């Protein structure tokens, strides 16, 4: 793996290209305890790579599989209890890999045939007890595993659109069993732990929905943000019952990722990542500041490393296989 260190230092943003060669980056993920362990992952056409030093250096996470060619990896996610269980999941064509030793060894769980294209993985916040993992797919709706990733089954009751791009679980999932998916034609909600789905009133003409983010205080404020391909940013303040466009959003292009800080209720910061820009709002979406000081192209995904004021650090994946480390 070629590792470069091109650093752009500007007034506001420090951007560093920390990895090349993934061909196209599909997903990024940081360990829940990133500030302590510095572990993050990058998944792409060129394979799955892991960094244990905050994104400075990267290793082939699938080296133990001794494959002749890189394994196309479309999504990756860490267990919420990664510090203790060292578990992470990654989707590959026809299956989901799971590792219980931070990527040293892997087990494969096959998915139904024909092989689905997994667009996103999400692990239940209550994973230690319920062992639930969800996979969003491009043509097969939602796959659900209730045995820690060992077996998977499709649960698509009421899901009228099987083209799923985004997946977001309620922070209070252990009690409300609620999750949302962003699809080609809008947003669906499940309040039965991902087994049955209902349409929300998100306007069909404004879909596809590429990214979703639930407020960390979702139980009380019911706030959901939805990033679309061509219709900007949308918000619901009533758990997805009604939706309105965020009036302050003016940046064109698809919103590929949305990041909210854990302290959103006190500090309503939102970081929205389009394919060419990083946009930051400090007032819950009323006004936005585009980080013009850096030139970005082909951003496909993003993950938060730390988003505590004043230190906001994210990694970005690009369509040309690069991983950028950004400090705002």
């Amino acid at each position: 793996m070629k590792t470069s260190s091109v650093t752009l230092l500007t007034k506001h943003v420090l951007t560093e290209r920390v990895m090349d060669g993934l061909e196209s980056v599909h997903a990024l993920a940081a360990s829940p305890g990133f500030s302590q362990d510095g572990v993050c992952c990058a998944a792409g056409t060129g394979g799955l790579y892991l960094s244990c030093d905050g994104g400075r250096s990267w290793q082939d996470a699938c080296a133990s599989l001794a494959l002749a060619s890189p394994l196309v990896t479309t999504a990756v996610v860490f267990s919420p209890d990664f510090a203790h269980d060292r578990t992470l999941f990654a989707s590959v064509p026809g299956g989901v890999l799971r590792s219980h030793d931070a990527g040293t060894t892997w087990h494969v769980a096959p998915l139904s045939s024909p092989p689905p294209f997994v667009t996103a993985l999400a692990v239940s916040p209550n994973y230690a007890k319920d062992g639930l993992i969800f996979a969003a797919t491009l043509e097969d709706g939602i796959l659900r595993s209730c045995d820690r990733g060992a077996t998977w089954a499709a649960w698509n009751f009421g899901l009228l659109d099987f083209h799923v791009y985004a997946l977001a679980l309620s922070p209070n999932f252990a009690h409300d069993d609620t999750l949302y998916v962003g699809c080609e034609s809008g947003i669906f909600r499940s309040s039965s732990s991902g087994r049955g789905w209902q349409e929300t009133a998100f306007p069909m003409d404004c879909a596809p929905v590429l990214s979703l983010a639930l407020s960390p205080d979702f139980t009380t404020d019911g706030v959901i943000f939805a990033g679309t391909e061509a219709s900007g940013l949308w918000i619901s303040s009533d758990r997805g019952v009604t939706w309105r466009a965020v009036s302050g959003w003016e940046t064109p292009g698809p919103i590929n990722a949305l990041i909210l800080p854990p302290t959103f209720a006190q500090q309503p910061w939102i970081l929205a990542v389009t394919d060419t820009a990083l946009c930051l709002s400090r007032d819950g979406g009323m006004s936005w500041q585009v980080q013009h000081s850096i030139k970005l192209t082909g951003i496909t995904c993003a993950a938060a490393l730390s988003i505590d004021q004043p230190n906001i650090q994210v990694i970005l994946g690009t369509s040309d296989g690069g991983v950028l480390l950004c400090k705002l």
Partner: protein
Amino acid sequence: MAGADILINAIRPTLGPVPRIVAIDRTLDHCSPELLDSGGTIAKRVIQLPDYRADMGAMFVRDMFWRLQDQEGDGTATAAVIFQATFNEGVRMITAGLNARRLQGFLEEGIQVVIEELRRQTQPATTSSQLVQVAYTVCQDRELSELLGEIFSIIGSYGRLEVREDAGRGLRHEYVEGTYWERGLISQHMVADVKRMRSEMEDAAIVFSDLRIRHPQDILPVLIAAVKANYRRLLLIADELSDSAISLLLANNKPAHMQILAVKTPGYGPEQQAAFLEDGTILCGGRAFVRSAGDTFASIRKEDFGHARRVWADLHNFGVIGGKGDARWRRRHVATLRALHTETGDLVLRDKLQDRIGRLLGGSATLRVGGASTPEIKARKELAERAVKAVRGALQEGILPGGGVALLGCRPALQARLDAACIPEERAAYRILLNAVTEPFRTIVANAGYSPSAILVALDYAGPGHIFDALSGNIVPMETAAIYDPANIVKAAAYAGLSSAALALTIDVLVHRTEQPSHALPPSPGRRKQL
């Protein structure tokens, strides 16, 4: 009215969570009496009363109960006591000199007040525990209720649920992925997995039609178009295929090159088949070839094929998983069908629309009901079907406080109307209604062995938001008791009971036939006398 009273008094003990059992003698054999606690079933079992005058009254209310049972699955006992209270009080008022027609008019106005008040109190059924409670209200079977609560929290209000008899002893349930129809493979030679008697295909192309294929050359264009488009797996749906056409398909069914399955078009008659073709093409894309439109396969193109991630078929059913139709069209189509389902009053059409929506939602559940004996299985299955109807209704139209409390909640609005009324018939109508809406509550309390008047006073004293729990005998806050009735059933029962009674009050003349059928029960004195 004597006949209506006889029937209603037979049903009355079944109202509430502490119902009394009604034993009905079996007429066709010498078995033990049938033990029933369902008002609708009791009404259905009463075929004729010996007294011809009483029989007319009994049949009048029986028809209303039967219809209510078929439509909503429950609510007959509530309708029965409301009818009785309204009619008896109305007769008293008319005897006192009021005009029956004007009284009926004001009663009809008052019914709207009751329905509106019930609507105001309705809340959506959002949690699984509420659904469990609604099911329990109908079937009084904890295990069945909990299973239905779980199933409906997954499949939703329009989801497809089949209740089947099972050889086992208990209840079992399973979820089926995708959509399936009750039409099997046209030839058993198409079965690929002989062990399971089933064929499966991945990424299959589908041709939707209701054409009758008489000659092999009629389907030749389909095969040519599929080969040109490089479709290696094909499902052909047609209303009829001749032996020679099937032979052509079998000759070309070589899994290494092209796998072909053929099934008959689901549905009986052009209307049902047209509905299937519409739903199928929306689910999977492509175009429907319709016989009545003069379509043939001669002009078939690549774009006319539908597609699905997976297709399966056995000798009895075929199914589609992951149809590749346009999701937006599918959502709009489901919304249209839902709107039609809500608007229509035609029960047959409602059932058909329900079935179509359920299939389009992409999954179904099966509840298998077992038991120790065939009669037990049949009884439990019937109970399960009624509970399914009630839970579905609760999901679609919401829930109301149970135990007759929702109807009691209509009293303030009726009292206000009474206070404002000046015309004697109007005042009488609202007095009748005030009495009628308390009757279900009184009956439930009496059936549980308590004094209705004392409990009613205690409940009024406790204030709004309280309910009488007939099982424990206590007045408890609503949120603690969590006793609910499906709103559709309460509204339908109130409407049926009140409206039928209002109509019955205007009946002045009874006409019956002079010659009774030969199979009639022993005639009572004057049975052959013409009125």
